[in-house]
């Protein structure tokens, strides 16, 4: 049995761990609120954008003159996976879930004989992906210096992606991120962004006049749409990360509390045992006299 001094130290250390996890939980909660707010602020833009583009795309999708970003290159041999994770750990299964989905997707594609390339956003994802898909790794976007993701960040990533598409580095691009549902549920999601896929737009779109022309607008908007989708995904990811961290730290705090209770009981029992022992010694000493 560990002695009293050891137990006491152990309790003190678990208590300070609990303090840290509690603080991390509260920080994550505050950050989550901010992340959710910015995700919500971005929603009107993304929704309108996709509705208009969806209408245009459904009118043009079938025609031969459709831009490559919409119709694809005509092949699907080379797939680019853009895997977005967090810059930091200690957020439960958040990073590993996204990495797992991406890895599985990559394995499926390889089984079908496709070539896979991977770009990662976020240090944690890079570490996880490099281990298994190291030879397919073509790039990494470092956002560790960025305190709060802005549209500018998304646009830079999109520009890099579009450049790679223009020079024919890949045929299909898929985005991996975690969709934020609520604090306890974040769903790892795969979203194909090139060639663009849209839900059928509202039929009213046919009534619009287009200036300059439908083709020109489509050609102007499609590259922007890549940035918009990446931005939306980055924001969702940021909210998911904080949500995941919050619930992970909440669990950790609770576990630490349970551990403290158990250790305290053990400590009290041992203390009682020591006292009883001392009493027995005194009594038997007195009897021997």
């Amino acid at each position, binding site marked *: 049995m560990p002695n009293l001094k050891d137990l006491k130290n152990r309790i003190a250390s678990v208590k300070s761990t609990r303090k840290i996890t509690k603080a991390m939980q509260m920080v994550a909660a505050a950050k989550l609120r901010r992340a959710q707010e*910015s995700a919500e*602020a971005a929603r009107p833009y993304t929704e*309108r954008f996709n509705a*208009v583009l969806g209408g245009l795309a459904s009118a043009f999708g079938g025609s031969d003159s459709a831009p490559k970003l919409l119709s694809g290159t005509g092949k699907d041999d080379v797939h680019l996976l853009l895997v977005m994770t967090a810059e930091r750990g200690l957020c439960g299964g958040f990073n590993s879930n996204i990495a797992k989905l991406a890895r599985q997707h990559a394995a499926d594609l390889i089984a079908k004989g496709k070539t896979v390339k991977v770009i990662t956003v976020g240090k944690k994802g890079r570490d996880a992906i490099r281990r298994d898909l190291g030879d397919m790794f073509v790039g990494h976007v470092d956002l560790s210096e960025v305190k709060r993701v802005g549209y500018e960040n998304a646009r830079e990533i999109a520009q890099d992606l579009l450049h790679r598409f223009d020079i024919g580095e890949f045929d299909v691009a898929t985005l991996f991120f975690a969709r934020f549902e609520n604090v306890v549920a974040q769903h790892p999601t795969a979203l194909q962004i090139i060639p663009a896929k849209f839900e059928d737009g509202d039929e009213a779109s046919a*009534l619009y006049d*287009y*200036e300059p022309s439908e083709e020109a607008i489509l050609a102007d908007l499609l590259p922007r749409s890549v940035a*918009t989708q990446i931005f939306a995904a980055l924001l969702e990811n940021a909210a998911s990360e904080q949500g995941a961290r919050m619930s992970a730290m909440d669990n950790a705090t609770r576990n630490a509390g349970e551990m403290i209770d158990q250790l305290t009981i053990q400590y009290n029992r041992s203390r009682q045992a020591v006292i009883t022992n001392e009493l027995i010694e005194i009594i038997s000493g007195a009897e021997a006299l």
Partner: protein
Amino acid sequence: MQFDLVSPERRLSSVEATEVQIPGADGDMTAMAEHAPTITTLRPGVLKVIGPNGTDEYVVTGGFAEISGASTTVLAEQAWHKSDVSQTVLDGLLDAAKEAAANAPADQVDTLAKQVADLAAVGAELGLSA
């Protein structure tokens, strides 16, 4: 007529307006109530919103405007209230545009050169040097 101005990061304005002057890619246009449904792309320029509560001006870069009889929605890639556009902001935009124009492939040189010219025109309109 309802007017909304949204950028990817936030909603800048959502007001009742009588008239909206939009810097369309093919030229300025003014949207008023009962305008025919139109979608136009934007060039860098000044967007003017005239409503019952006075006039507001915004600087927008790219994006598009969706006009219907009852509402006008402008989705701008970047947008600022006119008072927030300082010389530094404009310089930053101009530098980025010039750099893009300098490195552009041949088929895009004209478009990007026009961007630079449009931005310079914005500067002139705001009374900043370009």
